[in-house]
């Protein structure tokens, strides 16, 4: 089944196209990587799909249902590129996850049966069980990203949008993060839309790749799509394609 269908999406700002006629679809349970140079419109694309910025023309549908301004029964999760928040906010990791737990219109701080276990379970999945009582502002980049993944999957989403989620995290942290995403994809059947600058990540984790530079340049399986020619056309002559020897981590 098609999880995400995007047709002719155009976003304009100051009479200039930020993205133009982007059309693609993602099958349920797949990981698709979106790549492109800086300023190619990758974040704009994800934000437009999520309804965070308005689009000029085009349609977005999730599992066959129109998806606009997040008014949909189908839940999605999102981890932004740079999470902007007040680092001095007195908010613990478990409180943050608790505020995201349904029902939305209920008094927080009250001990609800099952809520504590649910939060602990989520933190366990992302390997952050020791962080439950930590203040959100005191977390390192890698810890914060794992907590944000836990937050993104609190409501059992069908589709997960990750906008360069591991940027600013050390190499080991990046690898742990991408392994976690792959595990969630396998175990929960999550469809993942992942923006990445790292071609190594694309080869190792993505089922399909979408190359863009304001317009769609190519789409398909990474090893078939990311030819020398395509990569040079996006990133310049200094770049070339290579195929990573190990494809997946267990």
């Amino acid at each position: 089944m098609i999880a995400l269908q995007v047709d002719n999406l155009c976003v304009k700002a100051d009479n200039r196209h930020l993205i133009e006629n982007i059309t693609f679809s993602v099958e349920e349970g797949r990981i698709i990587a979106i790549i492109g140079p800086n300023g190619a419109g990758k974040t704009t694309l994800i934000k437009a799909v999520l309804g965070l910025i308005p689009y000029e023309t085009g349609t977005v549908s999730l599992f066959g249902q129109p998806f606009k301004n997040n008014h949909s029964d189908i839940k999605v999760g999102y981890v932004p590129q740079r999470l902007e928040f007040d680092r001095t906010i007195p908010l613990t990791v478990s409180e943050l996850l608790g505020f995201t737990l349904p029902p939305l219109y209920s008094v927080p701080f009250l001990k609800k049966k099952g809520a504590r276990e649910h939060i602990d379970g989520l933190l366990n999945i992302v390997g952050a069980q020791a962080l439950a009582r930590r203040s959100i502002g005191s977390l390192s980049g890698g810890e914060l990203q794992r907590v944000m993944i836990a937050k993104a999957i609190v409501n059992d989403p069908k589709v997960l949008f990750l906008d360069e989620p591991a940027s600013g995290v050390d190499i080991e942290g990046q690898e742990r993060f991408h392994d976690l995403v792959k595990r969630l994809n396998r175990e929960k059947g999550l469809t993942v839309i992942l923006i990445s600058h790292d071609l190594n990540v694309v080869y190792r984790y993505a089922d399909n790749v979408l190359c863009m530079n304001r317009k769609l340049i190519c789409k398909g399986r990474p090893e078939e799509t990311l030819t020398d020619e395509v990569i040079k056309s996006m990133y310049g002559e200094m770049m070339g394609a290579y195929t990573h020897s190990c494809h997946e981590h267990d």
Partner: protein
Amino acid sequence: MISEFISYPFIQRALLASVMVGILCPFVGNFVVLRRMSFYSDAISHSAFAGIAAGALLGIDLSLSSIIVAVFIAVVIAFLSEKTGLSHDTVIGIAFSGAIAAGMLVMGMLKGYRTDMFTFLFGDILAITERDILMIFFVGMLTIIILLTFLKPFLQITFNRDLARVEGISVRFFEYLLFLIIAVVVTVSLKIIGMILVTSLLIVPAASAKNLASSMKRLFVYSCIFGVVSGVLGLAMSIYLDTSSGPTIVLVSIGIFFLTMIKRE
């Protein structure tokens, strides 16, 4: 001496008012501090001046007229912020100065000396009536019920607006609602602490609590405790020292703030 003072009905009303406002203002003030809306709350309290002047001119209840104008200014600020693309503080500055100018213009049309207007300007907790107490009680209860019911979306928006939107929260609706709540709470507290100082009761206990709190739950509990202590202790000190109640309450809350700073260090 204390029991003698407490036996006076006006002192009882003042104590009750200071406890209620001591809980209500910091509870709402936590959002003002976390969302960095101090200038907004200050602008709303000063905008109520236009409502008080208009109420005096039209011969209607000053509390009611101040609430109507403050809510109107709150909606204007929210609307202009959304539609113009100007920064929030610029929009607040425009609405704020417009309301003050209108208030001064209307005040110039009034004949005679109006002592009741000065109660709103500087506050007089000892002049609180039973009707004022009832108004603070009902507004306070309604505000706290609304905030508790919608606390999850309010806090999600406070943490990150984009993530809140993706969760399906109507950020626009809750922004307007918070603006209105702040406007109403500020105006019902005017008679107690005065237009000039009311913002401090919103901000200072919440800022003191933020110095100490390690969690959101503690932030709300500490801020309300600091608000009540500031109100009651400030009132008692103002009676004992024969000083104005509003400024004494504010100075006590600022004293608590500095104590929490030491603890934080």
